[in-house]
C-alpha cells in the first residue's frame, strides 16, 4: 500500500485511543507498573506513558508468547489423541493494538517474520503477526544506548509500523503504511486530517557512531579472538539480554502433562544458557560465556544477515540497559568495528 499521511491533534489522539478501547480493542502501551515501565493493557489513554523512551521488555510476547501450546494430547488406554494447537491461535491479535512503541520495536516484527518463514512457515507466529496492529511513535531523543541508526533504521523510521506517529508542535502526524493501519483509523477518520507527505516534518539527519558492516567484517574474520573470552568474563549468562530483546526468538519445545492428558509447548530459550547447546553426551560446543556471547553477536550481526540480508538487531539498546553487569552491545559492536 502506498503510504498515507494524516494530521491529528493531541486531544484527538487521546480521543482516538479511548474510542478504540471503548470499541473493545485491547490497547497495549508503555505503562508504569511494578516500579518500572512495561508494555501492558491500558484502559484509558492517560495510562500510557508516551514519554518513556522504551519499556523494559519489548512486546515480542504478543508475537511469540513466552509459552505457547503447539498441541494437546490425551490418552485413553493405548490410544493417543492429538489436538492441533493452532486452532486456538486462529484470529489471535485481531483486536489488539500496540500503541506508543518505538520504531526499533516495530522494526523487530518483520525481522522475526523472516526466520519464521524462510522455509517452513510457522503459522503460530504468522497468525499473530498478521493480525497485530502497531502504532508507533517516532523518537525525539534517543539515549546513549540507542543505535537504531547504525542498525539500518532510524528514530523516525516507519519500518514495521502500521502507523507511525511523529510529534510536531503539540500535534502529531500519522504515517499510515498498511491497510491494517488504515482499517484501524477508518471508523474514527473524522479525528484525523489527511495531509500530504510534504507537510510531514522531514527526518533529521541522524549521525552514525560506527558502521555495522565493519562489525560484521570483523566477525567474518575472527571466530577465535581473545576479545570474546576477555570481554565477556563479566557476563553471568543471565539471558536478560536475550529475553528483553525484541528480535531474539530462540525457543525450546517441551511436553507437560500427566498420564491422561497434556500438551506440547514451546518456551522462550536463550543462547546464553550453558545447557542450550549441551549434547546428551555431555559435549558442549559452547563451553564458556565468551563462546555464548560470541554466538549472540554472530547471530545478530553476521549469521542472520548472511541469510536474510538484514541484521537481527534493531539497535534498541535494551540488552545494554538491562544487563546487570553493564555489558553494552553498542560499545561492543563499536569495539569490533574499530578492530576490523
Amino acid at each position, binding site marked *: 500500500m502506498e503510504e498515507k499521511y494524516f494530521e491529528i491533534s493531541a486531544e484527538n489522539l487521546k480521543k482516538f485511543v479511548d474510542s478504540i478501547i471503548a470499541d473493545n480493542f485491547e490497547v497495549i502501551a508503555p505503562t508504569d507498573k511494578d516500579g518500572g515501565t512495561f508494555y501492558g493493557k491500558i484502559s484509558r489513554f492517560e495510562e500510557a506513558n508516551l514519554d518513556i523512551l522504551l519499556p523494559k521488555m519489548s512486546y515480542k510476547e504478543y508475537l511469540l508468547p513466552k509459552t505457547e501450546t503447539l498441541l494437546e494430547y490425551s490418552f485413553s488406554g493405548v490410544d493417543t489423541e492429538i489436538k492441533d494447537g493452532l486452532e486456538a491461535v486462529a484470529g489471535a491479535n485481531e483486536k489488539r493494538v500496540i500503541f506508543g512503541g518505538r520504531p526499533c520495536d516495530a522494526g523487530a516484527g518483520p525481522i522475526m517474520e523472516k526466520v519464521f518463514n524462510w522455509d517452513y512457515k510457522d503459522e503460530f507466529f504468522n497468525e499473530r503477526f498478521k493480525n497485530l496492529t502497531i502504532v508507533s511513535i517516532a523518537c525525539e531523543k534517543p539515549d546513549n544506548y540507542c543505535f537504531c541508526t547504525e542498525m539500518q533504521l532510524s528514530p523516525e523510521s516507519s519500518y514495521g509500523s502500521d502507523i507511525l506517529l511523529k510529534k510536531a508542535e503539540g500535534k502529531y502526524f500519522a504515517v499510515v503504511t498498511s491497510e491494517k493501519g488504515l482499517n484501524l483509523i477508518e471508523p474514527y477518520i473524522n479525528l484525523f486530517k489527511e495531509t500530504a507527505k510534504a507537510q510531514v516534518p522531514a527526518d533529521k539527519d541522524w549521525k552514525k557512531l560506527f558502521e555495522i558492516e565493519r562489525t560484521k567484517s570483523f566477525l567474518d574474520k575472527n571466530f577465535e579472538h581473545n576479545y570474546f573470552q576477555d570481554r565477556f568474563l563479566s557476563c553471568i549468562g543471565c539471558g536478560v539480554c536475550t529475553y528483553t530483546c525484541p528480535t531474539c526468538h530462540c525457543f525450546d519445545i517441551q511436553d507437560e502433562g500427566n498420564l*491422561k492428558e497434556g500438551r506440547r509447548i514451546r518456551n522462550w530459550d536463550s543462547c546464553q544458557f550453558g545447557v542450550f547447546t549441551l549434547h546428551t553426551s555431555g559435549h558442549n560446543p559452547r563451553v564458556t560465556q565468551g563462546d555464548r556471547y560470541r554466538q549472540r553477536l554472530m547471530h545478530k550481526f553476521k549469521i542472520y544477515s548472511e541469510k536474510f540480508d538484514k541484521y537481527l538487531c534493531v539497535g534498541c539498546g535494551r540488552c545494554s540497559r538491562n544487563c546487570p553487569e553493564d555489558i553494552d552491545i553498542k560499545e561492543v559492536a563499536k569495539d569490533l568495528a574499530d578492530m576490523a
Partner: protein
Amino acid sequence: MSRIGVFVCWCGSNIAGTVDVEKVREEAAKIPGVVSALDYKYMCSDPGQNSLRNIIKEKNLTGIVLAACSPHMHENTFRKAAAKEGLNPYFVEIANIREQVSWVHEDKERATAKAVDLMKMMVEKVKRDRPIEDVRVPLNKKALVIGGGIAGIQAALDIANGGVEVILVEKEPSIGGRMIQLDETFPTLDCSSCIMTPKMVEANQHPNIKLYTYSEVEDISGYIGNFKVKIKKKARSVVEKDCTGCGECWNACPMHKNVKSEFNVNLSERTAIYVPFPQAVPLVPVLDRSVCLHFKKGGKCQKCYDACGPKCINFDLQDEIIEETVGAIVASTGYDLMDTSMYGEYGYGKYKDVISGLQFERLLSASGPTEGLIKRPSDGKTPQTIVFVQCVGSRDPEKGVPYCSKVCCMYTAKHAKLFAHKVHGSQSYVFYIDIRSTSKGYEEFVRGTMEQDGAIYLRGRVSKIYEDEGKLIVKGADTLSGNQVEIAADMVVLATGVIPKKGSDKLAQMLGISYDKYGFFTESHPKLRPAESSTAGIFLAGMAQGPRDIPESVVSGSAAASKILGLFSKNEYEVEGTIANVNEATCVACFYCQRVCAYNAISKKEIKDRSGKLIKVVANVNPGLCTGCGACVNACFSKSIDVKGFMDDQIYAEIKALAV
C-alpha cells in the same frame, strides 16, 4: 520396553470381600506396558507363586506388581520367587490393597477405586525400576578393640575365643580400665582384682589377641570389612620383650616423691619410671618423659638404666606407627569422672578429707595407698563418721549433667557397707535424691546397707560443707522429715557423676560414628541395635555408650563380640542394593549430602583426567556404609544424588499416576 505383569490377590475374601479384584485386574490390563493381568485367590500360596513364576517366563516380564497385602508381609516372598526366574528381585513392587484398603474401608466401589490407584502407582514405579544388585563387601576377619577396660577385654576375649584375631588398643600402660581400680564390687562384693586380673592375663596370653598398650588409634579410614587403622605405640623407653617386670628400675628412680599416681587418684605418688599398679598387664614399666630427670636435665640421670639387669631401658625409643587392616571395630573407651570443682560449696580440692568415690575405692583396696585401711588423707586417722553425698554432678542440669550416672547409688551403698565392715562402731550418712537399685539383688544390697550396716539415709541435697575444728560440717536438708540437718563428719565421699572418656568425641569423629551431646556414643537404634554404632562395622561396648555397671558392661562387650562373630561367619558382608548413587556429571561438591548422612557414607572423590590433572571433586557413596535412607537426596539442591529403589523419577511417576 516395559513388560509388566500385574497380579491381583483376593486373599480369600480378605481383599475380594471389599475390593472388586476383577475390576482392578481389568484396569491393569488397560495400562500401556502391562502385558499380563491376573487375579488369584491366594498369591502367596505355592500355586499362586508358581503361576507368577510361569508368567514371568511365558511373557518375559520386566516387572511385576502385586496388588496384595502389605509389602511388610510378603515382599520378600515374591522377590525370591521372581529371582528364581532370573528377574531382578527389585523389579517387584507391591500395592498394599489389604492393610491399607480392604481392611480399612467399607464402600466397595470406592475401595476398588483406591485399589486401582495404588496398583497404577506401582505399575508406574516398576516401569522405572532399574536393576539393583546387592552390594557384597569382602571382609578382613580381624577385629580391633579400642579400650581395654572390662568391656573391651570381654569383647576381645569373646572374639578371640571365637577364633578371630583381635587387636586390643589401650591408651594407658596397662589394661584393666576403671574396674581394676575398684575394691570389692557390688552386689556380690567379690574382689575386683580377683576377678579382673585373670581376665587381663588371659587377654595378654591369648594367641588370638595382640595387645597394644600405651597406644592410641591415630587414624581410621575405610569401611566395614576393610578398615585401615593407624595405631600409635607411644615410646615406653623400655624394650617390652626384654623386660622381666622385676621392678629394679622403678625402685632406683629418684623421682619418688614428686609425681601423683593416676591410678591411685592422686592419693599416692609414683616414680618417673613406673607401673601403674603391681598387677599391671603387661607388667612392663613406662618411663614418663615429662618428669624423668634424664629428659629434663639433659641425659644426666640414668639410674634406672644402671639398675636394669637385662638392659632393656632405651632412652632413644621413638613413637611407632603400626598399620593394621581390620574388618570390624569395638569402641569401648569407658568413662571419666566429672570434675566437681564447680561444687565449690562441697570443698573438694580445698579440704583434703573431701574425696571422690573412686578415691574411696582406692582407700578400700588392699593394694591401694593405705593397704586397705581407711585413713584420712589429711592426717592418716581412721574416720569414725563419713558422709556420703550422692548425685554430685548427676541429675543436675544446671551445674552438672541431667542424666543419672546409674552406678553411684550402688557403689555408695557398697562404700557405706564396707566402711561399716572395716571400722567397727563407725557411722555413715548418705545424702540421696532417689535410690536406684533395679538389677538382681541390688535392692536387697541397699536395704542391707541400711538395715544391717546401719547407714543412715537422708533424702535431700547437701547445701554446704565446711571445716570446723578438724571436723567437716555437712549441712543439708532432710526432705522427708523436713528438717535441716548438720553432721560433723571425719570424711566426706562425693559420688561424682560419670562422663565419657576425655577425647571420645575426637575418636567418634575419626570413626565416623555419632555421639550425643555429652560425648557418649549413640547406638544405631537404642532398642533394636544397642550394640551397633551408626556406622556399619563399628560396635559399641561398656560405659562409652552411657552409664552402666560391670555386669552390663560385660554383657555389652559380649554383645559386640557376638555381632562381630556373626558378621565374620560369612566371607562377605551383604548390603541391600538400595543405596545412594551420585550423578558425577552434575554434582557440585557442596557436600550437603555428607553433612546430613548419619552413616558417614559420603566421601570426597577427585576426578582426574588421564594426565592426572584434577578435573573436579564430587561426592562418592560408600556402598558398605550407605543404608539407603535418602537423607542425602533431600539435601542435594542440584538433585545430583538419588537412592536406588526410591528414585526421584519413580516417586514423581507415582504421583503422576494419581493425577486427578
